[in-house]
């Protein structure tokens, strides 16, 4: 077994905006998987919102995942569904029903209302990432996890996407953890955690 992380001792406050930086192979994705409840293959304890989530049942873990919004580098939209259907599916899974009002609200927030009936393949990278953010915001998450959110889009759109995330943090005080290798992106957060070879090499709070 490969050890991707070693002696990680990390506490992230509710309502904070953190970025995790590091070169590829530094273990930042592994850390993100643990934080995002996507991977349970680790030793030690992880407490999310006062719940220790290691040996819990799938139903409990799933319930917590619904309170997490993910933004992936590859957007991870379902290509055979329209934008609207993608959001409806998320709504059904997270809320248990199709909340059309909330869907049009988040689409408006990411300025994508006109693309509701488009398929992801018909959208640009930046547009796809906006939909992805809309989906993450849909159920008003307690925690938003973004994995290289600007990694697959051009510079022009990068600013837009980051502004959306900033806005979400400012307006709703959602805890945000953003993983990036780009220091410019990382600088927007109020805390930067730097990983190197699976250990935290630097952890500083920006003023």
């Amino acid at each position, binding site marked *: 077994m490969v050890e991707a992380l070693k002696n990680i001792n990390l506490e992230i406050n509710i309502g904070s905006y953190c970025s995790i930086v590091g070169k590829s192979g530094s273990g930042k994705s592994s850390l993100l998987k643990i934080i995002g409840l*996507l991977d349970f293959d680790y030793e030690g304890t992880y407490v999310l919102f006062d719940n220790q989530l290691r040996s819990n049942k799938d139903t409990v873990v799933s319930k917590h995942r619904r*309170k997490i919004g993910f933004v992936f580098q590859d957007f991870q*939209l379902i290509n055979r569904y329209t934008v609207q259907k993608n959001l409806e599916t998320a709504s059904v899974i997270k809320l248990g029903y199709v909340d059309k009002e909330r869907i049009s609200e988040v689409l408006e927030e990411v300025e994508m209302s006109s693309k509701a009936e488009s398929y992801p393949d018909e959208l640009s990278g930046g547009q796809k990432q906006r939909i992805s953010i809309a989906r993450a915001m849909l159920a008003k998450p307690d925690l938003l996890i973004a994995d290289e959110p600007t990694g697959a889009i051009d510079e022009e759109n990068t600013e837009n996407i980051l502004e959306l995330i900033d806005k979400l943090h400012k307006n709703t005080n959602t805890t945000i953890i953003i993983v990036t290798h780009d220091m410019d992106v990382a600088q927007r957060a109020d805390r930067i955690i730097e990983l190197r070879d699976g250990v935290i090499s630097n952890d500083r709070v920006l003023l």
Partner: protein
Amino acid sequence: MIGYFFKSAFTTLKYNKFRTFLTGLGIFVGVASVIIIVSFSDSFSHHLSNKFNQKVTLGLVSSIGDNTDFTEVITSNEIQTVANEVRKMEDVLSFEQAEGSKKIDCQLSNGTWQYNVDIAFDDDVSIVDGNSFNSAIGNVVIAYQSGTDETSPVYKLGDSVVIDGIVYTIIGTTTDLSATIYFPQRLSSQVSYQEAFDIAAFYLTTNNKNPDTVNIILDMLNAELEDSVNFVNYTEEDSESIGSIFSTISIFLSLIASISLIVSAINIINIMYISILERANEIAIYRSLGMTKGMVVYLFLIESLLIVVMFALMGYLFGLLASYLILTIMDINLYVSINSLLLIVTISVVLGIGAGIKPAMKASNTNLSILLR
């Protein structure tokens, strides 16, 4: 939420139209052929049993005793009278006495044997040994070539048989057991015999389709004859045995047709596995959004159930339609029991769940790490 997943599964199947079609085709063909076989067998046996009921044949069997002349117990006039009293039996077609045997006392030349034997007057007897009656003159007979039965007399060529003091020579032997001894027609006035019914039967045939009529006649005859006669309803027995032959054949053919159902079930398992591999990302997205493993299983089960039930019902309808068209050409009414529909629904639900459950479980265990690069 469940309704939404149903809609979702339907969208998925529609999205993969051609694959869905190919997957369901096996189910369609299998179910259609089972239904065609079942409805053919049902319709044929129904048709035949109708035909039988149109022509009721009753056997009236005497239970009086071995030496009683049956005709003294029940006469054709008696039956006809009773039959005519029943209004519905106005269309009695025929009434005939079953052919009984004629008997004589017979003694072999060596004097050892004395028997009641069956006799017949027939010029055309197929012989296995000796001569036929063609050119024979005098008192000659052809005898049944007995087997090894020790209680029966053994006739040999050239033996003599004494009947009423007249000596007859055996000129030939036969294996035809309509009678024990055959006389040429020309001797019919010379030989004295008696009618001897051990079991005699009358066959009453009617065109009346209502089986109740038969029962009415039976009751009246019983009253008339003070229960001295047993009745056997040959029609019922015949149609029952034909029905059972048909259902045996149809079960056998249905088993062959269900092989195609098994093959399509394997096909569904295969396709579901491929589909899960292809959609690993999609499943991981669902899971990351908070879908439980149970829900993933449920989602994929719905998909396989939808395919199977949809195509099974289409196959059912097609099978019925095809049977109807073919049977109409053959001038037979389509008759299908409701059991066949229950059978198909049961088969398809069992197939759908059976084929879908394993891949669905696999789907629920998709690794979520694939979402992150």
